[in-house]
C-alpha cells in the first residue's frame, strides 16, 4: 500500500517547466531521500506534496494522506510561543500538553519547555520542529533540507536522532536534500531528480559489517554523484 502516489506531475512557473512529469510512490513507513542539484525541482515537488503551491500552474495526480507533517529548512518556530506551546500548537484534545512533553523528551529537550525559541541553538530549534512534526503521528513526514543550515557535528547527531525516531514512529518520509552522504545514511531509497524528472533511483541496502558497509556506501555515493553530474565515471 503506498502512502504517496504521484503520477505525471507537472508544475510551471512563467514559461519554464519545473516539474516535467514526475511519478513517485512511497510505501508505508518507507524512507525516501530526494536528491538533486539546485533548480532540479526537488523543493517544488515537496511543496506540491505539502499542498503549499497555491499559485502554481500544472497538472497531474497527487495522492497524499491528510495527516502529513512538514519540517522546513528553518525551524520555523513561532517566536511568541514557548517551546512547549510551539509543539502543542495545532494539537487538539485534553492530553495535548502531555503528548507535547513526551515528544520534547524524545528529541532530548525535556527541561526546555518554558524557553523562548531565541534562547535555543539552531540544532535545538530544529529538534523542536521535529517534535512538532512527530507529535502528530503523521503517516507522511516531508522534510525540506531540514539539516541544511546546521553545522557538521550537529548534523550527524540529528541524523542519528531522525533515524531513531522514524524507526519508532514509522512515518513514510520524503527527505529533500543536496547532501549525498545524508541521503545514503538515512534513506532506504534515493531518488535523483533532474530537470523536473526522476533521473535515477537507487535502493540503499547496506551490509551490517562495518568495513563492507563503508565500501558499499562509497560505491553508492560515487554512483549518485555521477547522476548528479559532479563526478565522471573515469
Amino acid at each position: 500500500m503506498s502512502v504517496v502516489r504521484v503520477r505525471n506531475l507537472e508544475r510551471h512557473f512563467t514559461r519554464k517547466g519545473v516539474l516535467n512529469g514526475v511519478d513517485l510512490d512511497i510505501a508505508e513507513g518507507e524512507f525516501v531521500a530526494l536528491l538533486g542539484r539546485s533548480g532540479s525541482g526537488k523543493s517544488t515537488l515537496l511543496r506540491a506534496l505539502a499542498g503549499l503551491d497555491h499559485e502554481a500552474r500544472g497538472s497531474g495526480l497527487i495522492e497524499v494522506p491528510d495527516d502529513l507533517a512538514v519540517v522546513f529548512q528553518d525551524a520555523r518556530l513561532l517566536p511568541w510561543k514557548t517551546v512547549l506551546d510551539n509543539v502543542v500548537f495545532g494539537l487538539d484534545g485534553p492530553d495535548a500538553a502531555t503528548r507535547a512533553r513526551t515528544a520534547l523528551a524524545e528529541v532530548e529537550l525535556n527541561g526546555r519547555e518554558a524557553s523562548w525559541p531565541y534562547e535555543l541553538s539552531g540544532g535545538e530549534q530544529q529538534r523542536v520542529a521535529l517534535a512538532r512534526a512527530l507529535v502528530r503521528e503523521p503517516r507522511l513526514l516531508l522534510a525540506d533540507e531540514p539539516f541544511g543550515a546546521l553545522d557538521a557535528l550537529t548534523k550527524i547527531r540529528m541524523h542519528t536522532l531522525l533515524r531513531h525516531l522514524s524507526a519508532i514512529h514509522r512515518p513514510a518520509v520524503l527527505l529533500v536534500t543536496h547532501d549525498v552522504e545524508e541521503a545514503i545514511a538515512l534513506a532506504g531509497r534515493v531518488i535523483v531528480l533532474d530537470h523536473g524528472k526522476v533521473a535515477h533511483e537507487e535502493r540503499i541496502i547496506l551490509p551490517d559489517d562495518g568495513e563492507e558497509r563503508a565500501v558499499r556506501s562509497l560505491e553508492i555515493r560515487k554512483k549518485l554523484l555521477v547522476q548528479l553530474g559532479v563526478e565522471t565515471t573515469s
Partner: protein
Amino acid sequence: MTAQRLSPPPALRYGWLAGPLFLLAYWAAASAVGLIDNRILPSPWVAISTGADLVRDGRLPINLLISLLRAAEGFVLGAVVGIALALLSGLSRAGDYFVDGIAQVKRAVPAVALIPFFILWFGVDEGMKIMVIAIGAFTPVYLHTHTALRAIDIRYVELAETLRIGYWRFVRHIVLPGALPGMMLGLRFGVMAALLGLVVVEEVNATSGIGYMIDLARTYAQSDIMLVGLVTYVVIGVIADQTLLRIERKVLSWRRTLVA
C-alpha cells in the same frame, strides 16, 4: 599590538543626562548673574516655587486632571477605532479596498487642519477637542497596525497551512501576535500625536486645562506659569511614553531585541 578601536566605547548608564544637566546648569548660572531676563525666561528656582504655589492653590492639579482626561479619552477613542479598522482592512480584502483607501487619504490630512470643520460639526466644546485628539491618535495606530497585519511572515503562513489549523486559529495564534510589535509602535506614536492634539486644542477657546493655564498666563506675561505648564506637558509625554514602553516590554518579552 592590539587593533585600534573604531567603534565608540559602550554607553554609560546615565550618560544621556550629560546634555540636559549642562543645559540646566547654564540656565541656572545665566539666571543668577542676570544674563537671562526673568521676564523672558524665569530662573529654575522661580519656576519651581511657582509650580509649588500652583499645586498648593489647586490650579495645577485640576487643570492637569482635565488635560489628562481629555487626552486619554481622545487617545482611547482613536486607538480603538484605529485598531478596529486596521483589523478590518488587514484581515479581509474587501475591508482593504474600502477602508485602507480612505485611511491613506486621511493620512495626508493633518489632524490639526480639521479643527475648523470639527468646530462646525461638534461645536467649540469638549466634543471637538476630543475628536481632534482622537483623529490625531488614530492615524499612526491604524497605519502601523495595518502594515504589521499585512506583513505577516509568509513562512508562518505556510507553517499554519501544513498544521491544518483553521482560519481563526491562524488569526489568533499567528497574525495577531505577529502584528503586536507593529501595533505597540503605532500606539506609542499615537500617544505622541494625542498630546500634540491636546496642546493645539487647548489653545482654541479652552476654559480649562494646562493649555488654558498657559494661554491665560501669556495674557498677563506670567512667564513662570507658562514654563510650569510647558514642563507639565513634557512630564505627561514622558510618563505616557514610558508607560507604553513598559507595557510593550511585558507583552513582547519573547523578543530578543528588547531583552538586550
